[in-house]
């Protein structure tokens, strides 16, 4: 799940602490960046100092040549500084690019954990915002620090007494800004949240205009959205009011030193400060420090809060799996066992599964039926260890289902089959860590009825393009993969719903015939239930277990689901939410192919007999279809 080593202690995402750690790990890059920034600051230093020297030693002394020479020196400093500026971009990249990489890794890890589709937008959009704002922050903060240092060193060289006039207001202004930074970031966050809420609401309304009109809900919908629009406007007002404080901080830090310098000028001139030094000091204050402060306060306020918001969203980590206590399979334990299992989606929600007891011996074949959305897939997810029940225990071959050790013992194939860009062979061997000979792969494909598909795709070495496969073909690939997996327990969660009934029947029988294999089928069509040795009927939180014949007598719902039990019953057991081609089709194979007449299906008897009894009678007519 997580790209980081298992042993690492779980960390709560604190952007500040992680940021410091991030920079510390890249201290070399930071040092290189600082070096080039010094070169960049050479220009800042030159603006004032060269001007002062050019005036004092040159133009004011009536000697134009030294004056021009000092200015030429400043021009060289400008060029050096500009080169430094160019290199600081590379230095910033050495920080921003690794940040992007780390965020991408984290987004991918989390997406694979929770399957959230929004991850794609996070990956392409929010990560880029984080990268750009982070780079912007690095640039602004760095520029200010080195500009300030360059200017202060220059002032000190011109006349150390100048620092006494400049430093106190500068520090006071920066302190004022620092104090207001946190509330400012808070306002900025509130504004961004309000802005997103508006965009989302407008998106919903524009996509649902038909529903709004049909419900005659124009006025309340307009009122609701207008309230969000007004809330965003108020958030923007609040943000704008805080900008006043920023201007005050800027006035204290940047403008006050100029006034102080002018007020003190007669005394400074009396105490040996030259005319050139005074002009140079004014140049430092008005042309280096003031613009630098302006950029810092604007950049930190806007970029910093944006970065904070985006990082907070991106850095939420997936919960780590439980510590890897590797239990060994318990001999003699049932293949799948549920003891008093209760699961609900929240403390206020009705349970989806309520105190369910179920034990499947090795080699058994269970079908789970019920109306769509009743919780069949939740049950499969509980057995697959993807969900944790609030009460009770789920175990696979005696190992708790959430345990790492249980992973190798069961394989879940969901309705939405997974295929990836790669070769056909890579896709089929995906669940095997050992090398699998081609012969075995081809035999597996033949067994579940995908041999023809493999031929069509061009064999195991052929590249597979997911977009070119139909939903049914994707399911066939996933079925072969599961068949090849070493796991003794196979969970098919409507895994063949896009196949035609004959192909579905063939695949199910192949799985049931796996030596020692236990099969749980979340049934999509009535045929799946008829083929299974035992059937679990889910009806709300109530469940009933029995054979097909028993349930036909006992469960009204089961009779409904089986479409009155007749061979022509055309009620699908369960349909997925997507449109299906065979939505209402009768299973043409199961009825006539099964022992007994079409109307009254004879149960297979005990669960254990199913693999031998279930496979034979259906084999004949199936091949012919």
């Amino acid at each position, binding site marked *: 799940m997580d790209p980081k080593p298992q042993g690492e202690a779980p960390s709560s995402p604190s952007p500040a602490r992680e940021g410091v750690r991030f920079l510390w790990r890249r201290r070399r890059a930071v040092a290189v960046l600082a070096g080039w920034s010094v070169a960049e600051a050479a220009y800042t230093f030159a603006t004032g100092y060269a001007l002062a020297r050019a005036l004092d030693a040159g133009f004011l002394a009536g000697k134009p040549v030294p004056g021009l020479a000092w200015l030429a020196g400043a021009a060289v400093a400008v060029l050096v500084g500009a080169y430094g500026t160019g290199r600081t971009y590379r230095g910033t990249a050495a920080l921003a690019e690794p940040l992007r990489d780390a965020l991408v890794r984290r987004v991918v890890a989390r997406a694979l954990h929770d399957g959230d589709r929004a991850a794609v937008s996070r990956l392409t959009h929010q990560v880029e915002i984080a990268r750009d704002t982070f780079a912007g922050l690095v640039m602004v903060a760095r520029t200010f620090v080195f500009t300030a240092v360059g200017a202060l060193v220059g002032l000190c060289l011109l006349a150390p007494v100048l620092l006494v006039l400049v430093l106190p207001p500068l520090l006071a202004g920066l302190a004022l800004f620092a104090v207001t930074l946190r509330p400012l970031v808070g306002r900025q966050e509130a504004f961004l949240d309000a802005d997103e809420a508006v965009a989302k609401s407008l998106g919903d309304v524009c996509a649902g205009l038909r529903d709004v009109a049909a419900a005659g809900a124009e006025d309340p919908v307009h009122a609701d959205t207008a309230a969000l629009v007004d809330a965003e406007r108020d958030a923007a007002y609040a943000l704008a009011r805080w900008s006043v404080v920023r201007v005050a901080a800027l006035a204290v830090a940047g403008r006050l030193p100029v006034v102080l310098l002018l007020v003190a000028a007669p005394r400074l001139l009396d105490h040996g400060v030259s005319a050139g030094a005074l002009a140079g000091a004014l140049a430092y204050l008005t*042309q280096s420090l003031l613009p630098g402060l302006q950029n810092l306060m604007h950049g930190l306020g806007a970029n910093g809060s944006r970065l904070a918001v985006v990082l907070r969203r991106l850095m939420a980590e997936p919960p780590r799996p439980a510590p890897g206590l590797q239990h060994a399979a318990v001999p003699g334990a049932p293949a799948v066992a549920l003891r008093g299992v209760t699961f609900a989606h929240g403390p206020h929600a009705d349970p989806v599964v309520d105190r369910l007891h179920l034990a499947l011996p090795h080699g058994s074949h269970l079908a789970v039926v019920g109306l769509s959305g009743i919780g069949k897939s939740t049950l499969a997810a509980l057995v697959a260890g993807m969900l944790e029940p609030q009460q009770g225990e789920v175990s696979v071959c005696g190992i708790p289902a959430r345990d790492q050790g249980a992973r190798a013992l069961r394989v879940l*194939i969901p309705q939405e089959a997974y295929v990836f860009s790669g070769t056909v062979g890579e896709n089929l061997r995906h669940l095997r860590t050992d090398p699998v000979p081609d012969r075995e792969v081809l035999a597996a494909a033949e067994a579940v009825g995908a041999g023809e598909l493999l031929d069509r795709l061009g064999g195991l070495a052929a590249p597979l393009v997911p977009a070119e496969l139909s939903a049914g073909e994707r399911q066939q690939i996933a079925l072969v993969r599961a068949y090849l997996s070493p796991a003794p327990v196979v969970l098919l969660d409507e895994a063949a719903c896009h196949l035609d009934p004959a192909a579905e029947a063939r695949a199910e029988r192949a799985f049931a015939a796996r030596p020692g294999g236990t099969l749980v089928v979340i049934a999509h069509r009535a045929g799946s239930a008829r083929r299974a040795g035992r059937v679990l009927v889910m009806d709300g939180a109530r469940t009933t277990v029995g054979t097909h014949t028993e349930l036909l007598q006992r469960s009204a719902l089961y009779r409904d689901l089986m479409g009155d039990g007749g061979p022509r019953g055309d009620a699908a057991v369960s*349909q997925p939410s997507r449109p299906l081609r065979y939505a209402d089709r009768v299973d043409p194979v199961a009825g006539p192919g099964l022992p007994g007449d079409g109307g009254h299906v004879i149960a297979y008897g005990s669960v254990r007999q199913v693999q031998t009894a279930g496979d034979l009678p259906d084999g004949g007519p199936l091949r012919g279809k």
Partner: protein
Amino acid sequence: MAARHRRSRLGGGDRLVADATRHVGARTLVLGLTSVAGTGAALLLPAVLGHTVDLLLARQSGEASRWVVLCALLLCAPAVFDALDGLLTGTTAAGATAWLRNRVLGHVLAVGPRATARFAPGDLVTRLVGNAAYVGTAPGSLASAVASVAAPLGGIAALGLVDPWLAVAFLAGAPALFLLLRAFTRASTDCLIAYQRLQGDLAGRLVEALDGVRTIAAAGTGRREADRILQPLPGLSREGHRMWRVQGRSAAQTAAVVPLLQIVVLAVAGLRLAQGALSVGDVLAASRYAVLAAGIGAIVGRLNALVHARTAAGRLAEILAEPPARYGPRELPAGDGTLRLRGVTAIRGGRTVLDGLDLVVPGGTTVAVVGRSDAGTSALAELAGRLADPDAGVVELDGVPLRDLTRTALRSHIAYAFARPALLGGTIAGTIGLGPHPPAPGTVTAAARAACADTFVRRLPERYDTPCATAPLSGGEAQRLGLARAFARPGSRLIVLDDATSSLDAVTEHRITHTLLTAAGPARTCLVVAHRTTTAARADQVAWLEDGRIRAVGTHAHLCELPGYCAAFADPEGAGPGPSLPPPRRATEADTPGGPHRRQRASRDGGEPPTAWGAEGRQEPEVSGPGPFSPPPRRATTAHAPGGPHRPHQVPRGEGAEG
């Protein structure tokens, strides 16, 4: 023609900008004044500062102290102006944006679903979110336009006033500035393209894995999958570094230009100082004016922003140019909910999907509309409840043309459910109760129960208060919420189900239709667009739509005998003669004249609605087909062949009326 269209669009946009500016008029005015004052102060300061320095250097303390005070004022005044400017720019943009969004949103809602036929929903959102925000900045940009042009021009003029040679030096050096600034855009595009391609690759791999996220989670292969997805990352990083390098190069160019210009001006000023033509203060002022004058490069950007805002305003004006939906003054008289379409034509995307269609759905009956063309059946569903107006012909409910009804009458008497309902309204309860007024207490849960939605809603984390955005709903569950929304409107006479049960399993669909038909209160007329045989089989009558006209009307069992009928379904092979589930029976079944097994049909005469249906009713021969469970239609539907809206002829039962 195109030019005139463009002009009119921009004209509308300009009017919109003017309206928005007027809405924040006072603030815009103050903003304009402060920005002009701020620029004035910024232009005065270097000259005053220079003169002050000269006075200080000349030891004229008395005179100098007055100038120092002036300097302090000129330094502090911009701080005040800046503060006002920040406050007003922010609030002006926010106020104007909010005003624009509310205005355009109100208009979009008034236009109704037709707006999305003209603009794709995503496009509408972009206009409402992005373009409105852009136009919102227009008043502020307008107000500060004078100031932003005045600063650099004033800087050049001030250089000339200090010494004409300074202006000459600046203007000679400036062209280099423009040439170098232009280099940036050309260099950066090609690495950006490579970067975006790799990013797309990465996103594509992630999407692939998200499709199989359950498989991956169950197999615990997450780390391997992450490695596979992240394969393009090193390449992305390489391209990223390349982008920064290119940016760094152009930044270095721009970083050099302005200071070099400034040094050129300083060198000339220094020479003039040595000649005694200028003072130290003048040199200082010249250095500052050179920086101000270099701001001329930014003027283009400022003007560009205004041009963009104008274009964005044009795009908003396009929305406002769509005429809003008009409603009539009439209320609905008492009636049984008979729906009549007369000579109705609908054109979608330039194609005629309904072509002079005539259909009567008698009050209280259920009629399924089937047809291969989704466009035709959906258009019919839209017209039946006036989500769209027909391009020709009339749709009437209980004798009143829909377009004569008030909006309230129309929406309170016709309810809709769709295949993919938009789950507006915030929470689950909100989306079920979506309507002009909050529903009566208890209505929501009762409607949810009727739509078989109560069970799964109670399993959601916050039950009925669960936000729709966070509720993990399947397509079938969303459909049931949409159905519940329709059921939560007890006053409706007509209910239109546009493929609204397509994602439900057969048993659930059966339960819902059963509840719908046996609900207490006055019987409701149902128009059901169906793509599944079971749905069609449960209706009293089926209207078979082909090539924009009614091909035949009859029970599902009868129509099944016609060639081509089965192909109208998404599940043609399964189009058997009837469902195996017990059909819904109405509570009012006993009222049916002739009993449940008598098939009667209405006669039509001269286009009048079949008020006296059955008066002329002849007994139909028993047809074997749907079996003992076939739904007994109690009233028949009459269809008109498109021979003309006023001389319709009857469709013989069981035969196709060639359209």
